[in-house]
Structures are given as structure tokens and as C-alpha cells.
């Protein structure tokens, strides 16, 4: 069971999606998860491919090939805008 977090514009685009998931079969990486989410929520799919979208696994930045298995917290983040 992993917490699934969305930030920025992605939070709005993800309304209705579960905030906790067991990784579905065949979903091993960040890009697998993106594909799975896009299939369930097309609006979110578009937002996940916007420029600057980043991911974090257990509060570390993670690339599209990062392994999700064992993750306790998965974050999908719209382009960051600090400073």
C-alpha cells in the first residue's frame, strides 16, 4: 500500500482518484504508473505530460524508470515554482 500524492495543477486534475494504492499488476515504474493513471483519468493523463512534471518516491526525486515496488509514498508534481 503506497500513499499517492498530487501537487499543483495535478492535484486538481486528480480529483476522484484514490489517495492510496496497491500497485496494479504490471505497474513497476513511474512511467508504468503514469500510463495506468492516464487510462483511468484522461484529463490527468494530459496534465501528467505537461512540461516540468516531476515525481518523487519516498520524498526523493525519481525519473520515469524509477522502481516503485516497496514505495510508501509516491508523489506526482506539476512544474515546481519556488523562489
Amino acid at each position: 500500500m503506497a500513499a499517492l500524492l498530487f501537487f499543483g495543477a495535478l492535484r486538481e486534475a486528480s480529483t476522484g482518484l484514490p489517495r492510496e494504492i496497491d500497485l496494479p499488476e504490471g505497474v513497476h515504474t513511474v512511467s508504468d504508473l503514469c500510463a495506468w493513471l492516464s487510462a483511468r483519468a484522461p484529463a490527468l493523463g494530459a496534465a501528467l505530460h505537461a512540461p516540468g512534471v516531476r515525481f518523487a518516491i519516498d520524498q526523493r526525486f525519481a525519473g520515469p524508470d524509477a522502481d516503485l515496488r516497496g514505495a510508501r509514498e509516491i508523489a506526482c508534481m506539476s512544474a515546481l515554482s519556488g523562489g
Partner: protein
Amino acid sequence: MTAMAQEGRVRVQISPEPFDPAAALTAFAAGRDGCGALASFVGYCRAVSGGVAVTGLALEHYPGFTERAVEAIAHDVAGRFAPIDVLVRHRYGEIRPGEPIVLAAALSVSRAPAFAAVEMLMDLLKTDAPFWKHETGPDGARWVAPTAEDRARAEAHRGRLRP
């Protein structure tokens, strides 16, 4: 009254409270007589953004991760320009026009590393610090994204930090 240690200090504070940049700078520079150069930057919530009035700004953050990511940026920059003292102060939550959002500062023996450190801090905060700006204006609200220039500047630093 101590001279600067070989290892500079790194101070990071992330909090929702309004802060006074002048008081924070005074505290940061206190007692560092060995250092001749203090460079700093304050980013304010603008009252006008892209020609449109801003009535409020909500700054979303990712508790825990935001603090860690900003600490990592501050330590990366301090390591790059050592010996140097580095300060980052950043708000989250509801911010009113005219209020400070971010303060970045560096204290060094000479001015070139102090300037370079503050610019690098700001460039990296723009694109690598987990904050999301949601501006409210007369016609509703919008998410703010970093510009292409912001991304290019941060990318250039990343190459230099992790070659």
C-alpha cells in the same frame, strides 16, 4: 566576533509566517567580522503579474520533502562556493501582495562568490524547490509555472554541480 570557519554555515527555514527580511539579514550577518561581502535577494508577492492584478497567492508545499529539497539546494550551493555562509528563508501558505516570499543570502570574504551563490540559490529554488504558486486575481485563479528561461538557468547550474 569569530572569523569565518572553513566550513560555512547553512541556515534554512521554511514556514508559513510572514517574516522581516531585514531582521533575518541582520541576524545572519551578526558576528561574522571576517566576512566582507553580504549578497542577498528578496522575492515579494507582486501586486501585478503579467499586467493583471494579484489579490492573493497561495503557496502549496510538500511537507517534509520541501524542507529536505531546499536544504539540499542550500548545501549544494554552499559546497560549490566554500567557504561561504548560506541562508534561505521561504514561506508557504497564504501570502498577500507586497509580502516577502523568499530570502536568499550569502556571506563571504569577497563579493564574487557571494553574488554567484545567491543567484544560483534563486535559480535552483525556482525549478527544484517543491512549491506551487496559485495566484488569485479578479478573473479567478491560475497556477504559476517557471519560464523557459528559469528552466534553462537551473539546468546550467545542475551541470556544474554534478558533472
